[in-house]
């Protein structure tokens, strides 16, 4: 069954890092440019993420993510470059389209922010196994019920996708049109989705009973198969990030003065 997680199973520095260090990295990488408030800091964070991505050998997996975000960045550039309210200075024109400096500058900032967030998340997402993240969260005192909720999503979705394919084939063999104009496609939606939804909701009843029988509601403290603790590398990594964060605050204060 195909997993929905993007995790790449390999042994690198990043996959060994504790999931909390990587979460901390996301926060720091997003906050630094917002605190510092200059375009150069976006460059710094993007560079940092790129270094981590290369070190983690996940460059190939990151490229489709970037390609996906490009359509959004492109619309932001088009709309603000052409129509931003503060547009005054004409930068260049392509035929009848006139691009303005102010709008493009604003769009650059938004585009860099999107890219920065995307790469920081990619570092985390591609190198952390969801089950490990849930384990780490539970060991830090997160409610195991919510932990179950998260890990169960990863089991349920591939199952539902299987059901969905079966139902799609079944309905098509009964003559349901799933291709054609918008009206035909819209009409196909209900007969496709309602059997899947119904069956998965009815399954929840049995799953609930199975869980209750196995002591899901028990208040007893659970033990763990693997004990994850922050290693020396994690502490070094987090210290480095904290230094960068403090640096950006100092940067902001000095530019103010």
């Amino acid at each position, binding site marked *: 069954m195909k997993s*929905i*997680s*993007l995790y790449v199973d390999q042994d690198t520095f990043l996959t060994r890092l504790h999931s909390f260090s990587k979460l901390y990295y996301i926060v720091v990488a997003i906050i630094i440019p917002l605190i510092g408030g200059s375009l150069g800091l976006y460059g710094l964070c993007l560079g940092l993420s790129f270094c981590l991505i290369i070190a983690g050998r996940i460059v190939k997996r990151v490229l489709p*993510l970037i390609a996906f*975000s490009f*359509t*959004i960045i492109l*619309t*932001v550039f*088009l*709309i603000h470059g*052409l*129509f*931003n*309210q503060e547009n005054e200075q004409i930068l260049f024109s392509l035929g009848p389209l006139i691009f303005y400096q102010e709008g493009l500058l604003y769009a650059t900032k*938004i585009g860099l922010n*999107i890219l920065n*967030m*995307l790469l*920081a*998340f*990619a570092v*985390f*997402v*591609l190198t952390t196994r969801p089950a490990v*993240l849930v384990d780490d969260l539970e060991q830090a005192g997160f409610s195991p*019920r*919510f932990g179950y*909720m*998260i890990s*169960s*999503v990863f089991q*349920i*979705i591939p199952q*539902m*996708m299987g059901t*969905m394919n079966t139902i799609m084939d079944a309905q098509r063999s009964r003559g349901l049109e799933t291709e054609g104009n*918008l009206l035909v*496609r*819209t009409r*196909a*939606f*209900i007969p*496709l*989705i*309602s059997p899947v*939804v*119904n069956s*998965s*909701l*009815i*399954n*929840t*009843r049995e799953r*609930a*009973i199975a*869980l*209750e029988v196995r002591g*899901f*509601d028990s208040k007893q403290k659970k033990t763990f198969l693997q004990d994850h603790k922050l290693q020396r590398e994690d502490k070094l990594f987090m210290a480095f990030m904290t230094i960068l964060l403090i640096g950006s605050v100092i940067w902001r204060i000095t530019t103010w003065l």
Partner: protein
Amino acid sequence: MKQLFKTKWNAACFVLIPACIGINYLGKLFASVLKLPLWLDSIGTCIGGILGGPIIGGICGAANNLIFGFTTGDSITLVYALTSLGIGAAVGIMARLGHMKTLSGALLTACVAGFTAVVISTPLNLIFWGGTTGNIWGDAVFAWSQASGLPVILGSFLDEVVVDIPDKFITLLIVFTIVKGLPRKLTSLYELDDEVVSLD
């Protein structure tokens, strides 16, 4: 009124949440397979809100976006966790007030859910993308409003209205038909006023 936010924290509710998140995912998938110009990614959140109440609905919505944000690398989804939370809670409240029993009530719920989504999403759009939503139709409206000199907030608001309100109408109609067809033996798990009665 006291029953409005009451939630049963039993296994049934904790199993409902992942199922709802799965349904959200399927809705989005079907919408993209059938190439519909809507998101349809809150069907599960609405079902969660109707069956489990506003708090479970809110958790469904927020958890949906958080889980997908942190595992599929879709950091754009992550931003809208608040919106989903709002939708789930709004639908849950409307359902507890008894509006999901009739078709007209379902349409009213759709309005409420749609406006909740618009009100929460608009500031998020402004902060993160400068007003656009990433949906072609909505962004065309935004471009038009900016070209005709309307304020950015109003433009972004219209951008959301054009996309969110039809989306929520269709979502709630689908949810209405699905919930109507659910067997009693399932819905009784989530009823609030149940009592344990002994036979002798």
